[in-house]
């Protein structure tokens, strides 16, 4: 089972939910938590496991071989991303723009653009009893999150049996990184806040999940702070409301220190336990 936790808007409690769900569930059986919010991964502040493995992640970028090149310009013509430009006497490759499609490299008549590795980030694996925590982290300056998200998911697939429950902390938004982090999941939890921003971005996220034909439910975080429009919306759209996490200044303070809220605040622990029960009733969780 793979559950992806997503939200249209950032900062609505994705990480709080992912880490606490994974932590509480791991007290019964093994769980993998993968932080796929690779631009700004934050789950690691709340899960204090022992580091067992770190690996650099690379992607392939063409590198110009001046000696072999005859300056025919074919590379510039085939690249749809303007990542390779032929000037009068040289060919320039813009690493950030390159999507690693190999077209320029394999179609160069002189083999003058061999593909070379280029570091984009790293994947770190931590262990805390039954909880296996995998973090993908993008290097600053690298603009493309998708290849690293893909690698991080592949890493969990290669290293762990598919029987183990996987929880993905997805990036925020509705564009390509979210699609990458949710398209292979069996169930999606959308987390939002009961505010106009929360509702607006929830609607976008719901559109994405319907487009992907995913089974999903909604959780409201900081319940009590805004109004009841999100609850109403879920009712009108017949979207299952999986639970509510109460709004408490205490929670913001505990979060600020990197404390796991289900350990620090009993009300939040019971809200998360209710969510687990709800997911079991719906047979999302065993």
């Amino acid at each position, binding site marked *: 089972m793979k559950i992806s936790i997503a939200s249209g808007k950032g900062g*609505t409690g994705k990480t709080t939910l992912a880490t606490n769900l994974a932590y509480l569930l791991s007290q019964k059986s093994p769980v993998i938590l993968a932080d796929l919010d690779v631009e700004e991964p934050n789950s690691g502040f709340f899960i204090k496991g022992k580091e067992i493995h770190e690996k650099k992640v690379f992607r392939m970028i063409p590198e110009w071989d001046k000696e072999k090149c005859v300056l025919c310009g074919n590379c510039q013509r*085939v690249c749809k991303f303007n990542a390779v430009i032929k000037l009068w006497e040289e060919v320039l490759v813009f690493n950030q723009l390159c999507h690693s499609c190999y077209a320029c490299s394999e*179609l160069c008549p002189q083999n003058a653009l061999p593909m070379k590795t280029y570091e984009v980030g790293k994947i770190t694996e931590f262990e805390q009893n039954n909880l296996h925590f995998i973090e993908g982290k993008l290097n600053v300056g690298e603009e493309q999150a998708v290849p690293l998200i893909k690698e991080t998911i592949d890493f969990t697939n290669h290293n762990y049996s598919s029987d183990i429950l996987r929880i993905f902390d997805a990036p925020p938004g509705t564009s390509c990184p979210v699609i990458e982090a949710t398209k292979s999941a069996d169930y999606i939890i959308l987390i939002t806040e009961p505010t106009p921003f929360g509702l607006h971005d929830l609607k976008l996220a719901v559109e994405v999940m319907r487009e992907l034909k995913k089974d999903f439910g909604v959780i409201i975080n900081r319940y009590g702070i805004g109004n009841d429009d999100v609850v109403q919306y879920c009712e009108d759209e017949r979207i299952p409301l999986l639970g509510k996490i109460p709004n408490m200044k205490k929670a913001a303070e505990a979060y600020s*220190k990197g404390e796991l809220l289900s350990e620090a605040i009993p009300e939040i622990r019971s809200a998360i336990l209710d969510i687990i029960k709800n997911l079991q009733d719906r047979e999302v969780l065993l």
Partner: protein
Amino acid sequence: MKEIVVISGKGGTGKTSITAAFAMLAGKNAVIADCDVDAADMHLLLQPDFAKSEDFYSGFKAEIDQELCMKCGKCKQACRFDAVKKIDDSYNILNLDCEGCGYCAEICPVKAIQMVEQNVGKWYISKIKNNAQMVHARLGIGADNSGKLVAKVKKEAKNIAQEASKDFILVDGSPGIGCPVVSSLSGADYVIIVTEPTLPGFHDMKRVYELVQNFHLTAGCIINKYDINKEISEKIKSFCKKNSIDIISYFPYDETFTQAMTQGKTIVEFDDGNLKKILENSWKKIISLTDQH
């Protein structure tokens, strides 16, 4: 004309609420650009009229003409993104996986593959409630061109600001450190980082500041909810001092932010007390800081 870009690294720090309040304070001296195109929320507070809208095309997807295809499978071999799938006897493009690189179209021996430009969103020029102009956008679902749409929004805002000789372009930037943020930052005269004193907030701020430094931009910092963890607020302060980041202001943890939002108002329209004063002082300070730089 100065371009001021507000970013945060982490989501949920109050960036958009604060930027919208600045928009009201700047009045008609500014053109507003909402570059958080992935989850654009500022319109909920500024009530733009969507006067002018245009489709945004960017990027491609491959399409196979089944009549022409002779099923040689070369496209499937070439594609690095596993976006060509053989279903029964025919080759098909998986739309969600296709990166639009065009390699398959380039090598198809019978030219059966077309690269079709994608409509990935819409952008708008609006008048907002204080009659200032705002450029904003909406990205289509799963689109992978948010960086380009951000660039488009900024370019239009710049044109308007230049034509009308405005003093400022005020940009609500995107979260994260990826391509939309890079586009938001390019060409900025001054960057404002809105952060919160939480371990994730501080960490994300440092990462996004690294990016700001890569672009050699000057920055200032606003600490929202500074009182939820004064120890980390102090750490953020020393980080700013060490890196010559101007400290613009501190906001207390205050649910007024949400109450104002619930009524579709910016904080300066809703609150007459402390928050409004901090915002007014912040905006004055920002104007004088951008004058210095």
